[in-house]
């Protein structure tokens, strides 16, 4: 009789630390943010303003521009990162001459901390930096990578991608190694072409891994802050002013916590919708097939 009771207790005991962590570090801050978004501070006193902070966002052109930048940034960076990480992972599991060197090279970015990477890139992308020097050899004039409205966002995408893909690559390698070699053997006997192997075998069987990478990558990129804070402060002309930076500026530079928290709640809501859609689309289709 005791045996039937123990799993419940055991499960509860094992889950408790994680649940406490979830509540303390995730749910509580979100609740706090949601609560603060209903207040404004006037003369040092918090004043309840209801939905005013959200209503104000509706007509706030800075907010809408920031939302647009955030979506555009994510529409580009997530597919790019995942496609590149998948490509790198496929190369990583191959056996060819020099593969060890290749593997080491692509693991380096994981070991470099983000601020360090950002600082190095800042120097390399400066007017007289390495990147302009290299393209100068090819006769291309020096480009204002981080200081022009047309290039800054893409430079940040490139830096974040350089830093991020190796990390995602590791997960995809794990997924690839889980695919049974017998399936490939069977496919080879059937005379399948390499591209068919990728589209019909590898990617469908990688779906659970790709779902995880997609969700985690989108969340991280939606909340990306450090490179923007360190390189462009949202400029030039607001071209890199993502919602996270806008919220930071509102709260910590302008002392307008009510607006900052309203922006944060909007970010969390958007993220929830996107992650929900991803789960539905990716896992739903798999179930339908089965």
């Amino acid at each position, binding site marked *: 009789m005791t045996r039937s009771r123990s799993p419940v207790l055991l499960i509860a005991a094992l889950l408790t630390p994680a649940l406490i962590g979830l509540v303390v570090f995730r749910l509580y801050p979100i609740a706090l943010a949601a609560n603060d978004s209903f207040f404004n501070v006037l003369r040092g006193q918090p004043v309840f303003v209801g939905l005013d902070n959200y209503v104000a966002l509706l007509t706030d052109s800075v907010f809408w521009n920031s939302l647009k930048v955030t979506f555009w940034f994510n529409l580009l960076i997530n597919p790019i990162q995942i496609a590149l990480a998948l490509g790198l992972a496929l190369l990583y599991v191959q056996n060819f001459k020099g593969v060890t060197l290749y593997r080491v090279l692509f693991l380096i970015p994981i070991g470099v901390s983000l601020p360090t990477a950002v600082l190095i890139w800042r120097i390399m992308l400066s007017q007289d930096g390495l990147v302009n020097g290299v393209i100068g050899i090819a006769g291309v004039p020096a480009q204002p990578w981080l200081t022009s409205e047309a290039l800054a966002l893409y430079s940040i995408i490139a830096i974040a991608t350089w830093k991020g893909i190796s990390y995602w690559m590791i997960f995809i390698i794990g997924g690839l190694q889980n695919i049974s070699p017998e399936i490939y053997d069977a496919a080879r006997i059937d005379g399948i072409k390499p591209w068919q192997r990728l589209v019909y075998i590898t990617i469908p069987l990688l779906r659970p891994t790709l779902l995880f990478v997609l969700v985690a990558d989108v969340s991280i990129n939606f909340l990306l802050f450090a490179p923007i804070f360190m390189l462009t402060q949202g400029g030039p*002309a607001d071209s890199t002013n993502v919602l996270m930076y806008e919220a930071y500026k509102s709260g*910590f530079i*302008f002392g307008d916590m009510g607006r900052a928290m309203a922006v944060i709640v909007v970010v969390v809501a958007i993220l929830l919708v996107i992650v929900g859609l991803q789960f539905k689309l990716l896992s739903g289709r798999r179930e339908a097939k089965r």
Partner: protein
Amino acid sequence: MKIIQTAIAAGLVASMLAGTALAQDKTLNMIVIEGGDTTAMQAVADAYKAAHPGVTINLQPYPFAQFFQVAELRLRSKDAGIDLVYVDAPLVASYASRGFLSPFDASVDTSTLVTSALDAGKYEGNQFALPINNSAQVLFFNKTLFANAGITPPDGLTAGETASQAQVDELAATKRWTWEQVADAAQKLTVKDGGRTTTYGFTVEQFGELYQLQPFGESLGTDVIGPDGYTAKGYLDSEAWTKAATYWANLYNEWGVSPKSLGYGEAAQLFGNGQLAMMAGGTWNLPGLEASGVDFGVAPYPYFEGGKVVTPTGSWYVGVNAASGNQAEAVDFAKYLTTSAEGTKTWFDSLQQLPTYKPLLDEISTAAAFDSFPQDVFRLGVYDSLNTAKARPVTAAYGQLQDAFRTAFVDIANGVAVKDALASAVQKFEAAAARVAP
């Protein structure tokens, strides 16, 4: 998150330190900026402790880049772990309007302080912060680069010469260069080698900062924002500011005489290396430039032809945290720091910043120790602070103004059209300011 963690950790350490102090002793905690300011404040704190046994001033230094956020967070959370706060002049209104600071009462004798500096520490008639020192900006020029290019440098103070206050006054009143002269010389002094600039003609020390650039438009006759503190339309986008911003745009794009996106301290480095012919910067650069060995002179801060002479001013203040449990002791140290002969002298000797304490200003004007270069540069500071200095606007939305202004001027240097950048700054400032306007 890092910053919040740092702030919490610092708060914990501070409260532990406060807790371990002996019962009869008082420890006052003060947040300051790391570096020279902390060294100077420690010197004053030591002198204070010698005169007031039983009271210890414990400094909590933060890097400049983090200081404002830490101060904002700790003051907002009514953190009793700090008693005294280092306050940047334009933030006085923002802090005071939110009840962060205790006002100083009539028991503090402020008659020995420069009036304009005192005024910048007031909000709605109350003195919320006391000025620790003032600041003055000048035009540094590299004599060797001017000589090599065969150009006559501006009249100014240089090594090997002495200057009385009267001579400095005359220099500042009649021989001040215009920005047009600066641009003209800068174009001749800039050296380009295959697309790369090896010598820049001119730069401002603080890239895109309101402190440094406020005189640009105001020299042409229009304030940066209206007297209510929340209106920028008709001010920042006026004809005067458009002209000033166009000059700024030309420095970077049309003429290409200034380096883009200089970080903190990078202008002084370029100047010290001999790669920059002219720099509009603070007198605080003097010790560093002396040490660099570059042969330089110091001229008054320029103005626009046909305009008025306006120079940057204002610096750091001290305030008492409203949440502090040691109000009387904190006020006493603030008084010592700003209105006593010993406190102000200790500070000046350590940091070499233009004082706001009048007896010390008199000493600079008259004492023989200030006759020779580079000490005579402080006499230029004395002239400007009494005649041409214009404080930054008093507004509870100063952070918003500073950010909108910086964004606009950085964007303009990077090639965004002047009209668009100014219009966007006006719109952004007014929208953000309206949210904190009373």
